[in-house]
């Protein structure tokens, strides 16, 4: 589904990623962990197509296509979804409008009929229930006046509606209390399927107790330093990140 090879990325002349290799197969859930400033969020943003980042070397293939050559909206229409670490507020654009525009942009790209109001309401209703989002939410401006947890749940709601092939969740667990994290995890787990891959970017192991990944990678100093199964996350939780960095420096 996703194949990243030797990816080098700069932001304002500073190299953040220095040769990332990552392959995620169809139906797999991978987690990327790492200390603050290791480049985790940069990787997520670059995959989604943020323009402030300069890719200086390497490539990324998404379902066989050159991901880095695509505009952000093309990536989304091809089935990539980024759940933002800091979902932004957009005053004046209501949630229903954004959700419909996003859904129909993707349907149009697939040559399908746009969703009408009736079908849209039917689609969104059960997903809102799953994410425990109140009904008045649809008529409110995107993320405006939402708590941190509500913003994250809204990201997952969008993901549930758009049903991406590859979901990249950038620290969707940060700032969530235990109950909110359970809701988010339930939403994410409901989407797991043999045809859908996921990349969870997280700082803590807690989320990975609820969404158990197939593979865990440690990103430090702009590179993946270590990969393993779910037990690696528990090891990191117990030992911290320092030993990975030390080990990497030694080798």
């Amino acid at each position, binding site marked *: 589904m996703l194949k990243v090879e030797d990816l080098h990325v700069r932001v304002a002349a500073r190299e953040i990623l220095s040769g990332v290799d990552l392959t995620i197969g169809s139906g797999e859930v991978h987690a990327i962990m790492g200390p603050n400033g290791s480049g985790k969020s940069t990787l997520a943003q670059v995959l*989604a197509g*943020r*323009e402030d980042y300069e890719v200086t070397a390497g490539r990324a293939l998404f379902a066989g296509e050159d991901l880095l050559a695509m505009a952000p*909206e093309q990536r*989304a229409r091809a089935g990539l979804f980024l759940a933002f670490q800091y*979902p*932004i507020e957009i005053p004046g*654009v209501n949630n229903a409008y954004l959700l419909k*525009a*996003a859904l129909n942009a993707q349907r149009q790209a697939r040559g399908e009929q746009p969703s009408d109001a009736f079908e849209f309401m039917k689609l969104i209703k059960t997903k809102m229930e799953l994410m425990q989002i109140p009904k008045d939410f649809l008529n409110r401006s995107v993320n405006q006046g939402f708590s941190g947890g509500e913003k994250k749940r809204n990201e997952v709601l969008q993901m549930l509606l758009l049903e991406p092939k590859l979901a990249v969740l950038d620290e969707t667990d940060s700032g969530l209390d235990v109950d909110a994290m359970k809701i988010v995890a339930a939403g994410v787990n409901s989407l797991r399927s043999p045809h859908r891959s996921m990349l969870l970017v997280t700082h803590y192991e807690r989320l990975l107790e609820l969404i158990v990944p197939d593979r865990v990678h440690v990103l430090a100093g702009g590179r993946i330093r270590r990969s393993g199964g779910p037990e690696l996350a528990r090891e990191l939780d117990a030992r911290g990140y320092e030993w990975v960095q030390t080990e990497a420096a030694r080798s």
Partner: protein
Amino acid sequence: MSVTTLERALAAERDSLPGSAASRPARAAALAELGAVGLPTTRRENWRYTDLEPLTKIEFDFTPRAPDAAAIRAAAHALAAHAIPDDGRRLVLVDGHVAPELCTLDARAGIEVRDVDAYRTRPAAKPGREIAAADHPLAALNSAYVQSGAWLRVADGVRLEEPLRLVLVASGAPLSAPQPRVVVELGRGAELAIVQHFIDAADADGWVNVVTEVEQAADSRLKLYRVQQHGRRQVHTSLLTVDLAARASASLGLVDLGGRLVRNDVDVRLREPGAAVELFGLLLAGEGQHVDDHTRIDHLAPDTRSDEAFRGVIGRRGRGVFNGKVVVHPGAHGIDARQSNDNLLLSEQAEIDTKPELEIYSDDVKCAHGSTVGELDAEHLFYLRSRGVDEAQAREILTGAFVAVVLERIASPELRAEVADAAAACLRAVGETAR
């Protein structure tokens, strides 16, 4: 100041002023005042950014005739083209003349309608209330040449919920320069909502110079939304004066979507305690458009409130001007005055000049003001694009959202949607939401 074509023409017409015989002295006096102060030039601080000089070289017709059958048909077509509802409360002026054929407002509506000459020669006319030519020279031009205009009165205690549609149509007759005037008087406790539409019946060079005077008695409530949708060859200058007595309140909205050269002046006088005004505006200016909003709010009495918010969207080489003055007079304590002006520039050539001015001569005043100028937020654009919305549509959505925030102030959802639709169509035409 040089003797211009316009001034020569005005001098020549001194003996042929229109209107009733009774109105002639007032018209002649206005013309004399205009002669004394002259048309505003960019040397006046209030007119620094808006140059009328090119207009003085054009031989405008300040006394367009009342519309004939063909003009009425063209106006009817324009009303339909702009989808202005005819819900039995419509009053239409064509080139400043009331066009009875197009009006559906009748006596049952609770509004008394007469012409402006009747207003000016009424027995109860209070001298000194007239607009000073020194402050507003263009109002003097209007006073000299005003056509029938419309004098609207709502009696004490009469409350009208459905909005009155007051449509001012420019016929598009050659170099027509109508001088429409609307006078609105609200009695004690009266309530009225007006949508004042400005539209063109033909795409032609012209100049509409309108004056709207509002006088509100104690405890009256007014909503007045002004939607200007002239064509790109029309010049539009306007003055709106609103005088509020005790506890009277007004919500005034200025929405400018069209026109080539547009200048709006708004003067609000909070004359007695408890008076309150909400003043908001939306200005769209694209290629070849210059739109200038100058507002002034005078807090003359204690415990008066003003809440002002203007937004501008400027595309291509459009130009916008906002100048908002708030004056708190001596002895006016317990004042709450807010003002904001936010502008969105859609291109690198687009220009906005914004200036809030506060003059405070009293203590115990709560004032807040601020202005911003910016482009569409790159984070917002990326967020929408990351959801599959293409860049052009994302820009359109965000520009629409910027506009929606100020239109929220239109209380009625139906009217708000109507104005938002007109603005959206215009934004697409100004369009250049793409760079």
